[in-house]
């Protein structure tokens, strides 16, 4: 009887130790908005330089991931200049805010922080509390920005980050390749995102 209980406890501990974790990385670079929630979608409102729909999609996705059982500390959010879109005076719908009105955004969506987070997931970063992912983990990546490409008809495409920084398709794929995982799911909303398919489709 004792042996049986001990075995069950041991099995439980082993399962816990090797349990797969769910991680997510949400990236929204240019042209993320922090201004008034007045206006409409980018295409319908070309005069505006920044667009709040980037925040709406990101915040809804963050809340959906929480409801799907992702731990908040396992969701890495890079948005705009590094702070949430929460304009004064106006009450935002709850689906666009952190449930406890905490910060959703962890880092600015610039090249330095993107590289830090991706290399952290690949090799671990104790200082920032980013764990090294292992072969059992699941990683969900979502990107939304303006998107760009090298020239007409070119398959060399990029993600648009803040301060006019970009990250090219091969660079992004190379960074993702270094992250261990059981499976990676990449969901892209920016223009020209199909140009990244052949670079990243075989990465787990």
């Amino acid at each position, binding site marked *: 009887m004792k042996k049986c209980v001990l075995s069950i406890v041991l099995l439980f501990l082993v399962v816990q130790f090797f349990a797969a974790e769910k991680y997510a990385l949400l990236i929204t670079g240019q042209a993320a908005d922090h201004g008034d929630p007045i206006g409409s979608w980018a295409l319908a409102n070309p005069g505006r330089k920044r667009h709040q729909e980037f925040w709406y999609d990101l915040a809804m996705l963050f809340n959906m991931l929480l409801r799907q059982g992702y731990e908040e500390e396992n969701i890495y959010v890079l948005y705009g200049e590094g702070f949430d879109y929460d304009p*004064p005076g106006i009450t935002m719908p709850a689906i666009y805010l952190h449930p406890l009105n905490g910060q959703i955004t962890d880092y600015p969506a610039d090249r330095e922080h993107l590289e830090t987070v991706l290399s952290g997931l690949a090799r671990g970063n104790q200082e920032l509390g980013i764990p090294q992912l292992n072969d059992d983990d699941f990683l969900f990546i979502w990107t939304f920005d303006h998107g760009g490409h090298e020239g007409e008809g070119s398959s060399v495409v990029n993600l648009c980050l803040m301060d006019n920084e970009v990250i090219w398709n091969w660079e992004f794929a190379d960074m993702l390749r270094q992250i261990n995982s059981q499976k990676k799911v990449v969901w892209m909303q920016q223009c020209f995102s199909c140009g990244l398919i052949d670079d990243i489709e075989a990465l787990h």
Partner: protein
Amino acid sequence: MKRLMIVLAYLSVCILLAQSWSQPINVSNQQNIKSKLDFCIDSRGIIHCIWMSGNPIGYQIYYSRSIDGGLTWTTPLQISDIDAYTRYYPKIVADSSGRLFVTYTCTYEGTETIRLKRYNGRVWTPEQTISASQVNSINLALAIDNCDRVYSFWQVYENPIGYKFNYVVIGEDNISQIFSPYSSTLGDNLIYSVVADSIGNLHCSGSRRETPNSIFNACYYRYNISDREWLAPVSMLTQYDAYQNGSDISLNRQGLPLMTWREVLNPNYPLNDRSQFSQFNGQVWSNPITISEDPWYQTMVVDANNIVHLVQVEKFYIGPRQIKNLVYYTSDGWEGEIITNSTNIATFPELRLYNNTLYLVYLDSISASVADIYFMKRVLPDTSINDELNIDPTIISSLSANPNPFRESVEINYKLNSGGPVNLGIFNIRGQLVKTLSKEYKNPGTYTVLWDGSNEHGNSVSNGIYYCRIQVDNKIKTIKLLLVK
């Protein structure tokens, strides 16, 4: 004489015990995602509490009540209709017969409407849409007056005029037309908290912005019931953008309004705030005073002795990790008392006064996904006994700085009415500790500490705003310092 001393000592202990907050009681007991909440106390003393709770689709509205003063609570009941919609920002009031009125925002496929739910003493009625002709409506406030007139307010955006509040008056069997009192006024006019006085006038705290590029001024709105007219809004002296979360209004014993609001000094990350307070003397509003730096939500009531009781969320640090706890202030010295012991975020406080007792409902969390609704109460002291015994309830009698602004060094002066472990530190506008000035037990008395504008490593810090915060046990006080080299 000895007997008198014993009686006085016994009375002092009783008063001190009565003045402390009760242990938190878990209202919701559902460990999942939760967010904003509200509660009311009906004429029989039954406490009714509602909150947003997450499920895989979105948020729904849950309800629980306590018939024994908050000791025990009924099993949470989902009162919003069961479908694929998501609901949030619930508000609740009770009329003189104990009937309940609940409003909230309902979202489906990007369209927001305001829904009403009633409880007639036996059953909850099906949801009713009260903003039928308007989409993208966000629930703001719910109020009831002495004649059981229920007012429901919500936010709309009217292109190209701006953000406005609209409202309806809810009767026993009917709902009025939708009123838009400032629909023809350019700019944004919004309210966040409403209270009715004894004759049915409405007093509202809100904000106003005249043009899209100007700041949101904290603003007082008033509705006169006798001539059914909204008066011209009164903007408070507001230096920075007034935020919606943390705006509250209450009436004193004479029926005069008092307002508190949150201003954001630094609109860039990390947001840095201050809570402001102003009161109306019948003719003018007082110049706003700053209660504390860096708060979040405030909620406020005024007792029968015109003492203001305020609870707000403030940031603290466990090592590098930021947490948030609730801090309780009274206008009797504005000394803060930390009243929760959260390991993550305690937030969304709602404070009510009933039978000389403060009732507080709030959310405490272990993580964003694991949170519960809690209840606490505090019996207020009989101030006549307090005065006779000459008890000063504050521990930190004063905290000041001289000179301020300062160039090279500043003298921090503080006075303690009773001894305790003192933690005196300088914080930057990000809320990060710059330097610890004192961390030791101090006896009652007056103390002076010099800060030479250096950090823990002895390096000079840059020009700008800093905060000096003293904490003795769970009591805190903060002042702002300005370093100009």
